[in-house]
């Protein structure tokens, strides 16, 4: 089926099998490999992206369902190659180790901060509940997000 999506401002038109998951489409068809796959049950959140501004795990979405949508992925967060305050805060607080869950964490944090610019620690934990990290124990990630909150 024909699918046209806009990812980080660029519009891509492709012919895809209906069965293809959006995450496979992004990674394999569009070579946007920043979003990751950490599970096969929708639990880990490594594939979290924003679809029309809504935070979703794109392993539970078919690529064809995203037809016409505007998608934001980790590749689109930085402005002209520079780290954003959120990314800098992750760096300062050592909020990543292997970095595999980080793109999904950043997207979840981005969605949170857009709605709630100064979240409490509990609000941050709840916002990150859908993203598994096996390296950090989350403490530094929560700190990093708290620090960018106004």
């Amino acid at each position, binding site marked *: 089926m024909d699918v046209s999506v806009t990812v980080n401002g660029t519009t891509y038109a492709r012919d895809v*099998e209906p*069965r*293809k998951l959006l995450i*496979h489409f992004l*990674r*394999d068809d569009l*070579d*946007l*490999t*920043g*979003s*990751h*796959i*950490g*599970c*096969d*049950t929708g*639990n*880990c959140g*490594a594939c979290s992206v924003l679809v029309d501004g809504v935070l979703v795990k794109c392993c539970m979405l078919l690529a064809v369902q995203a037809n016409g949508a505007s998608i934001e*992925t*980790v*590749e689109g*967060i*930085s402005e002209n*190659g520079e*780290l954003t305050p959120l*990314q800098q805060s*992750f*760096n*300062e607080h*050592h909020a*990543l*180790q*292997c*970095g*595999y*869950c*980080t*793109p999904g964490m*950043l997207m979840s944090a981005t969605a949170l901060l857009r709605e709630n610019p100064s979240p409490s620690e509990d609000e*941050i*934990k*709840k916002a*990150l*509940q*859908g*993203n*598994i*990290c*096996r*390296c*950090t*124990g*989350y*403490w*530094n*990630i*929560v700190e990093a997000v708290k620090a960018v909150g106004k």
Partner: protein
Amino acid sequence: MTESSTTTVAPAPVEVQKGWGGQSIKRKEDKRLLQGEGVFVDDIKRHGMGYLHFVRSPYAHAHITSIDVSAAEAVEGVYGTLTGEEVAALTDPFFQISSAPGANIKDYALAVGKVRYVGEAVVAVVAETRELARDASELVEVEYEPLPALVDAREAQKPGAPVLHDDAGGNLMWSGLYSWGDVDAAFAEADRVIAIDELHFHRFNSTPLECDGALVEFNRGVEQWTLHTNNQFPGFAAIMMGPAMKVGLDKLRFVTQDIGGGFGNKITSHPQLVVCCLLARKLNRPIQWTEWRTDFHMSMSHGNERWFSDTKVAVSNDGTLLGFKTKALDDAGAWLRYEPLGGVIWAQVTPGMYRWRHIELEFTQVATNKAPVSPNRGYSRMQHLWFTERVVDIVAHELGLDPVEVRKRNYIRAEDMPYETPNGCVYDSGDYARMLDLALELIGYDGLGARREQAKANGKLLGVGIGSTLDSGTNNFGQSRMINPELQFSGNNEVATVKLDIFGEIVVTLGTTPQGQGHETTAAQVVADILKCSPDDVHVRAGHDSYWNSHAGFSGTYASQFAVTGLGAVKGATEMLRDEIFKLAGAVFGGVPAEALELADGGIRIKESPDAFLPFMACGAIINANNAGLPEDLDVTLNCRYVYRPPFQVPDIEKKFGNLTLTYAAQIHVAVVEVDPETGYYEIVDYAAVDDCGNRINPQIVEGQVMGATAQAIGAAMHEVFSYDEDGNLLTPNFYDYHVPHALDMPPLATGAIESPSPFTPLGTKGMGEGGGAGIHAICAAIQDATGVQVKQSHNPYQRVWQMLQ
């Protein structure tokens, strides 16, 4: 010792030495990872690559009576298949570490004739797309003749038990008796002998968020494979793969950049890598293999499950620990992929943190119809340290003593350091009692009485528990000879090269395969201190490539050793480079002696007349591109390779005595739990972790490792388990039923650190990161304290806690 130690409550970092070392500088790795520009194995693509999908066994134990791949191969877009029969024809069985009977098993890259666990790979199918490969794998017809399954290691040696490996003549893989001191005398003089019928350490692993994978290319012209893979110990994989594939190790080029977590679980992917290699050659195209979460849970690297039975502990009435006897039964799963090394690795921490001198442990490892075990963070020591910590708390419970007092009475003391254990290991430094005090201070131990009352008023049970563990780092591989005297391994090593390029760039190459430990950053800190420049001026190559010739037999990232072996190699290579720069400058300045020169501001100058300054750029340019007229005898390359080799002897195989590891980082964790007696549901309401890993090059990175180990321990203690039903089905095959901690599961955490520099290492550092599972032990102890019931299992889900209270 105590003088050179300083105490602090993190996160405030300690200044342990002047310069960049000791500072929490920001990680060099982060930028690419934060921008989605890391390169993980599944990100790598090649023209014409074929996607590999494994057909896996639905049976825990069965004969394979027939395999028919014709329907699968007939599908358009399917490139080909590989079966166990082909593997057996093309390769030799993997070399076995074990002595007999384990030595006799025949382990191939795919199941041959028989399957031995649910999820074992039987056939590999390669196709044009990922989806098609899986579709075609459903068309592969495998006929099985089911056999009874063996899922409980305790049944393995009973008459009539199903036998996995006829070649081994039974399910016993390896056994050995360890005995040190005078155990009988200790039990004779003991006031009390405390008996513990059975303790069980459960099966789980660290489930790195990225599963295994590879992109393997075969270069026909030079008959050489390039393996882009996230294997975390390529040196070991090569040693396993080369002989099996009957090729020299240089025909196997391992390349990796970013790895999405390893924790030991990515050491034993060599069988899958062999399948990729054979298919890349057979089908003459790059082979891409991605392991999905359910594949990983069913088939990769479970942690060692262990029973301790007939334990007897010799104690005095005052709680002094004299010695113990126990029988350890280890469940290896279906294959010995790194085992039976677990049968000796535990001995690195034989007495735990305690001064008992009389110890006897009978170790037995058996095969079962479950996924093969492999190293997992805290590998084999964690199981044993859980045992020693359980023993201490059960002894305290039996004697009606305070677990804090029993620990302090028996801890090895700071003044005993360096301390030789009953089995000849040398604990390099530490002050465990002080760590405990700090941990108790962080948790507010004195105020707990009031909190207990408050909890009681709310119908809850509050409990506090301690986990005191060691993270033994830098293996002496000579210990493998205790498993199999014929093995020719001993010592350890790691490699680094440091060079000055033509424009003066400082380029560092490591032999390691980091998975988030920040090697690029800490290596740069060490180099900057020696060359008197900024870490920003130091380019540390990301990842590992065995073609860089910057690796040795033990290269990799595992077993808590980078801060010793990796940074030791970096230090050695950088000092070589520094000395060459001095030589070169001396010559360029016309015979100025080294002692008259000094490094400064990214160059070298004459102390007395600083204007005579030679920037690194000039040094690099002269040697690499402008070397006419240099003295003939000037032996300078500005490209220095150093192999760090720790000071080890081969242990005494007969007595099973000797120094098995170089450093002993220590952890003392304290957990406070609140139990709902009505349901058994409990929460960790407070947590403190104190770590001592000697000098910390980057305290923030060290603290990050402590936090990660803590979180994994919390998950393992409360939820994570690879649980099998009686047919051998894995009941927790993915993150739906295998619950790992999420953000809302995390308790408040206070971290603390003291620094007892290691007298044995180049930088006073100790390997760290595994953490010895301190959190598991602390949580078990806290549950025991809350319920008043002795905890005999390492895994305590709500149901078990509820049962304890019935």
